[in-house]
């Protein structure tokens, strides 16, 4: 069913922890599951699908060798960036609300930690004003 070039490429990546599957097979499956559930998470704004996406990535990483883990991480970052840009392009108001909410949470958390650490509150406010307010 799979083309010969893919079977040769997969065999060259070596065996994974999953019996009968090569590193390439497990890596591609993990990234594919991550991508599907990430898209569902963004579309439906649900939390449990994000958990499934994360677990798929972790399980895939555990089952492959370290070069394949690096490839999985890079591919996951590309998928994340693509989905983020697409979400921003398709739903800009929703993205702006999410960014504002994230910025508020981060600012209050950083201010609380800085005050607990005994830093000068005026200095903390200056840094927060000058820091970038979330993704552009």
């Amino acid at each position, binding site marked *: 069913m799979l083309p010969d070039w893919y079977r040769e490429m997969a065999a060259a990546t070596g065996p994974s*922890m999953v019996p009968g599957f090569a590193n390439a097979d497990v890596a591609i499956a993990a990234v594919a599951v991550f991508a599907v559930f990430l898209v569902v998470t963004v579309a439906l704004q649900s*939390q449990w699908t994000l*958990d499934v996406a*994360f677990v798929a990535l*972790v399980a895939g*990483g*555990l*089952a492959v*060798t*370290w070069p394949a*883990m*690096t490839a999985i991480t890079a591919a996951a970052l590309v998928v994340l960036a693509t989905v983020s840009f697409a979400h921003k392009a398709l739903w800009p108001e929703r993205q702006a609300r999410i960014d504002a909410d994230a910025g508020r*949470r*981060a600012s209050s*958390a950083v201010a*609380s*930690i*800085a005050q*607990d*650490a*005994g*830093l000068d509150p005026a200095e903390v406010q200056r840094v927060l004003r000058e820091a970038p307010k979330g993704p552009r």
Partner: protein
Amino acid sequence: MTDWIDTALRYVQAAGAAIDSVGMTIAIAILASILAAVGGISGMRYRLYGAVVGGMIANVVVKAMGGGFMPALAAMLGITLVGAVLGSTPLLVVLIKRMGRARRGG
């Protein structure tokens, strides 16, 4: 039950032999704790996410140093547990205070 524990300890020992550095192990544990603490700002779920990411760093280090799949899994679980337990906002406060003291003294 004791066989299971014995097997787990052997895998942990193999992971330690692969890393072969107490300093690196402590550094990875601290990194996992920091990631868990930063994630914990958003809630317990993200604290666990941060700890798991730290554990995966341990996993890749053990594999890169020649450890097998099972020792790497044992390292990942151990570091994740340490990160989840230690990773908290007070840890970040302690680290920031230490950094401030080091900067003032240096």
